């Protein structure tokens, strides 16, 4: 039989009438002097507080039983008959207060009933004492320690296996750095949850902080790989596909600069690596381009591409990211043409780069050459390399 303890009787803030009754009973049994002492914040308090301090503890089984029974009657009268045989083992806190540590003679008859502090909500309560047979205690210990050990081994194996393959290889746990699809799947699930949270946090109406010119900080050239040769700039064109018109449109920088209104903003660009820079940008709003060249009605995404990117050894390494259309429509999402009041240099993606400060820097594609409006989430350069896809910050 499972014994239900009368913990409710100890609740300092009783919520039910039955609780209130037991509280009164307890309050009635308080020793007046200890009640006074526990109320005051003086160092004397600790000496008089009932507790686990062994030398000060006297519990008479008979008395405890009697109190436990009182509690039962107060709160769970229906269970009394059932509980009675088991009460010896599950006793409520019934602790006598004895300020003298040396005192060892039981003072059952002389002392009034056990004292329980219920006068303050946040007051520390004396520990609940349980009376058990030694073999039961050994059983509990064995059971809990074995369960804990099994759990610890499982946790060690589970958590250890989630470490990156390269780390496990370095530690000598595995000897081959082979991909483990199930692990990748699991870790990517966690990544997707975080992306979903980021998407839920995004609001198209929420503007991000802007700064003054005095707050501008240096922005390094963080081209992934080598910086491209500027020879692409004279022939640069921005290609648009997936438009409602069904046409494929190519625009050069003069078209863009003359046709669209320029906007300035000083915003923070945050890199996935952790560094950030406050920079002064100007360009056209992505939203204005979307109005001038509406995408097909099915389009939910835009694939942003730069064909001029190079890998670290200087070989062509086209860069592509996915961008959701709600973010593209954000009023602070620019197709930037100027940096610090000057036309973009090749370091910063001349002649036109995406500036989407509500995303990580890696979505802020330099030297954009193509925008494709698509219905399905397009591929993403960094998502394919183990990073997240949405990257909303």
């Amino acid at each position, binding site marked *: 039989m499972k*014994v239900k303890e009368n*913990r409710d009787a*100890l*609740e300092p803030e009783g919520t039910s009438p039955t609780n209130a009754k037991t509280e009164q009973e307890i309050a009635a049994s308080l020793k007046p002097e200890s009640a006074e002492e526990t109320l005051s914040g003086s*160092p004397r*308090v*600790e000496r*008089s*507080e009932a507790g*686990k*301090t*062994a*030398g000060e*503890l006297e*519990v008479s*089984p008979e008395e405890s039983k009697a109190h436990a029974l009182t509690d039962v009657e107060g709160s769970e009268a229906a269970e009394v008959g059932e509980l009675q045989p088991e009460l*010896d083992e*599950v006793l409520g806190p019934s602790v006598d207060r004895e300020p003298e*540590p040396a005192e060892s003679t039981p003072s059952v008859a002389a002392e009034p009933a056990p004292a329980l502090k219920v006068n303050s909500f*946040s*007051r*520390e309560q004396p*520990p609940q*004492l*349980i*009376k*058990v*047979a*030694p*073999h039961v*205690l050994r*059983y509990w210990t064995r059971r*809990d*320690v074995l369960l*804990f050990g099994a*759990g610890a081994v499982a*946790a*060690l194996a589970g*958590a250890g296996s*989630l*470490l*990156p393959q*390269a780390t496990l290889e*370095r530690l000598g746990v595995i000897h081959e750095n082979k991909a483990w699809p199930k692990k990748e799947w699991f870790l990517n699930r*966690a990544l997707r949850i975080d992306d979903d949270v*980021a998407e839920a*946090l*995004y*609001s198209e109406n*929420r503007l*991000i902080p802007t700064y003054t010119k005095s707050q501008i900080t240096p922005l390094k050239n963080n081209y992934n790989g080598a910086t491209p040769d500027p020879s692409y700039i004279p022939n640069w064109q921005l290609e648009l596909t997936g438009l409602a018109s069904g046409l494929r449109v190519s625009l050069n920088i003069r078209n863009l600069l003359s046709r669209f209104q320029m906007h300035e903003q000083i915003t923070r660009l945050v890199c*996935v690596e*952790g*560094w*950030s820079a406050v920079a002064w940008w100007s360009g056209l709003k992505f939203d204005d381009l979307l109005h001038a060249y509406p995408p097909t009605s099915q389009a939910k995404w835009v694939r942003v591409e730069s064909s001029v990117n190079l890998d670290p050894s200087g070989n062509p390494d086209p860069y592509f990211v996915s961008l959701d259309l709600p973010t593209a429509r954000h009023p602070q999402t620019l197709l930037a043409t100027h940096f610090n009041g000057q036309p973009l240099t090749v370091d910063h993606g001349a002649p036109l780069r995406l500036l989407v400060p509500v995303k990580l820097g890696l979505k802020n594609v330099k030297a954009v050459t193509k925008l494709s409006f698509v219905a399905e989430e397009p591929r993403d350069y*960094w998502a394919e390399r*183990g990073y*997240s896809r949405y990257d*909303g*910050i």
Partner: protein
Amino acid sequence: MSLSTPTYNEPTATGTFPGKPDVLVARKHHLLVRWSHWLNVPIMLGLILSGISIYWASPIYQHAPDPQTGNFDYFADIGIWVCAHVPGLHHYSSPPDWIYNHMSLGPGMLGAALRLHWLCAYLFMLNGFVYVAGLALGEGWRSLMPRRTDLLDALRMIRYYIGIPFARLTRRKWLHPRFNTKYNALQRAAYFSVPVAGLLSVATGWAIHKPMQLHWLAALFGGYNAARVWHFWLMWVFIFFVLPHVILVLADGWDTLRSMIVGWSARVEGSEGLENEG
């Protein structure tokens, strides 16, 4: 409210061993508190290991690049120093990576580290709710509340710890200060601060994870860059807590360690009931 009790269903009735008297044990930690306590071990380890890997990508503490090595990271400097001075490490292949190879997932693991960090961070937050639920159901939160007497009691504890070596040397008896509360003032300060540090870690974590949507949160900590510094040093709060915590638990004995596994303490009789550390 019966949630706090189900660990104590006894296997057999008592009275079958009439020769052995029953013993008293004191309830110490709620089941949910114990779970969250131990779950914190792998979660925090994962957070710190992946966190230092993330730090590597853009160290907060940088100096002008070294003319010879090009190194600008103080953390890497420590690794270089260790490799130069610790015997047996003189031929370490990449001294700047030593710290990252030993205190993180390794250098150049940003993608993998971020993925693991988010996973552990969500688990850490869930675990925090489990802990709070355990504190509320087991009413253990009352034992963590700071008191007016704490400052004086903490000084008494510090005096006690400082005195231990002298007492040992002079073979004099050195009594542990008496406290009838669950924790002494130093313990209480530590066990109260750690959940607060956990909360701040989560808050600064969100501030640097979503500095645009939650820019007010970043502003609360002094902006995005300052929130990173906060987040970094909060990690050290946990490290500086865990070291004495583990040492004191081991020094205090099996009962204290066991109580975090089984939930109760047998220290209700005898003077050792006073010395609940850890």
